């Protein structure tokens, strides 16, 4: 358990492709499921959805504020509305609609941020979403979920269909291998332990869980260090029970996210730990507060150490092992 399986790499699909496939399955059985798009059905992998369910897709055009406002209206009238748009635009341009029309009015829109983080790579900062955890964490009545692999994605989409309150789902573009986790169930607000180890806890989410797991294998192979790796897919509400358990059961905590180091998963963990008396070596890995380096997604992440090598090195530094 918790090991990377080569065969899984070959069958890996982008999480947003899995989102689309599962949504089609759900839409076939539930006419109230509606995809709302902002000229984003191509990037959201919803072209087939639109062809199969033309009565269950609402095209808004490139107008994200309206996308979210209309989705709120649809949701208020009983539709299970999935507002699908690149995470960068959805959670910045339409933030006031998310705050007021979705969260404050409690219209249960499923906000789906696609091509999140630095998925768009060399398209640059306009297309990166490194702020979305931070801004949405500060808004009451918002569940924030970023699945790590195809299994988590499928489960998250199924759960979101039953949600009675707003949910934000965040997906990237990269094919994600199954993680073969120790924890085989999935629920919002409950972190998923991929593998257990007593030396250090690596708490990651989204597409950073996979390199975290590779780093853990490297640490074991080269340094005999046993790391726990967790997919903390739900940034809010944070699984503080698991966090406490990790703080008690390991010597250091390292968080990793494809997000600004400000206001995301790492700071959420730090806030809880500090306010509850845990004092551990602790480090947040993410995108630093600077003009983001240019390059592909992989190049950007590598630049900031979010790679098996970089994560392993940071873990060693945290444990003061050279």
């Amino acid at each position, binding site marked *: 358990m918790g090991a990377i399986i080569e065969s899984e790499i070959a069958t890996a699909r982008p999480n947003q492709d899995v989102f689309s496939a599962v949504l089609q399955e759900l839409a076939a059985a539930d006419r109230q499921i*509606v995809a709302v798009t902002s000229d984003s059905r191509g990037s959201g992998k919803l072209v087939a959805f639109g062809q199969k369910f033309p*009565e269950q897709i*609402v095209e*808004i*055009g490139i*107008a994200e*504020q*309206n996308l*979210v*406002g*209309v*989705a*709120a*209206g*649809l*949701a*208020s*009238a*009983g*539709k299970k*509305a999935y507002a699908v748009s690149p995470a960068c635009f959805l959670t910045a341009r339409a933030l*006031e*609609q998310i705050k*007021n*029309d979705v969260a*404050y*009015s*409690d*219209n249960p829109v499923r906000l789906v941020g696609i091509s999140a983080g630095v998925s768009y790579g060399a398209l640059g900062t306009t297309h990166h979403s490194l702020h979305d955890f931070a801004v949405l964490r500060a808004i009451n009545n918002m569940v924030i979920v970023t699945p790590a692999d195809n299994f988590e994605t499928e489960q998250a989409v199924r759960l979101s269909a039953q949600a009675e309150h707003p949910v934000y789902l965040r997906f990237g573009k990269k094919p994600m291998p199954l993680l073969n986790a120790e924890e085989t169930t999935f629920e919002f607000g409950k972190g998923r332990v991929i593998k257990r180890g007593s030396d250090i806890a690596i708490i990651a989410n989204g597409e950073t869980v996979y390199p975290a797991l590779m780093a853990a294998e490297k640490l074991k192979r080269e340094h005999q260090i046993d790391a726990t790796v967790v997919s903390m897919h739900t940034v809010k509400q944070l699984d503080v029970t698991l966090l406490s358990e990790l703080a008690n059961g390991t010597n250091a905590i390292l968080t990793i996210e494809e997000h600004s180091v400000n206001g995301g998963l790492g700071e959420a963990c730090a806030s809880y730990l500090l306010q509850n008396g845990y004092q551990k070596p602790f480090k947040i890995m993410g995108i630093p507060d600077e003009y983001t380096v240019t390059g592909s997604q992989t190049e950007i992440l590598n630049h900031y150490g979010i790679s098996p090598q970089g994560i392993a090195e940071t873990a060693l530094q945290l444990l003061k092992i050279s």
Partner: protein
Amino acid sequence: MADKFKVMNERALVQKSIEYRKKILKYIVGANAGHTGGSLSCVDILNVLYNQVLNVSPDAFVSPNRDRYIQSKGHCVEALFVVLADRGFFPEADLDTMCKYQSHYIGHPTRKVNGVEQNTGALGHGLPIAVGTALAAKMDNKDYRVFTLLGDGELPEGSNWEAALTASHYKLDNLCAIVDKNTLQITGPTSDVCNTDPLDEKFESFGWAVKTVNGHDLNELSAAFESMPFTKGKPNLVIANTVKGKGISFMENQVKWHHGVPNKEQYNEAITELDHALASA
């Protein structure tokens, strides 16, 4: 369905408008806050909607088939609360808590108050939500209608125009947007701040059917709403020409009454004027 509310004769409806104005002032003075001018400009519209047009009642407020009213110009909440109280959505005595600590009756509509459809207050939000709600009716073959009230001052918000496009694209003739065109906003004349005229031509070019009425003439308002859809397959826009501060001589067309609160002397003078109007109504 609206017919059941039409038992009220025209005189009674006119009297209601005056009573509503008295109550708006009473609760604004009680809260020592409020949007006086705009509440007075839009209250005749709300009177007609809630007493003649909307298929909505406290008993049926949870019905999926009810007509929806979304107040985009949320700051004129006093007019909405006074009308909802009159229609029995909550006891009027609740309004004694307006803007008080832990009251649900705050300076903008919230769903904590029975009868309020959406939490509003940030401008440019009502129309997109109304579009989504009207679209859901079309998708489900339901015959409820959706009304939203906008101020002319909030029209520069781009989200209105995004939603205006969507409304005509989806042929939402079950949607009615009403512009309370009182021509003043907090800085001054709307035409000086950001001119949106000719409003009818703008909306017509966006694919809407437009009617312009005197927003204080209850018959004109009623006739406009009853003639929906104005054109089959087109969303409806009612441009209601109104007077900010309507009904109180010293408040009419005065920017300072946008959110001015009358002092005791001004309040008494206003109530005296409204009582005279009531006596001759």
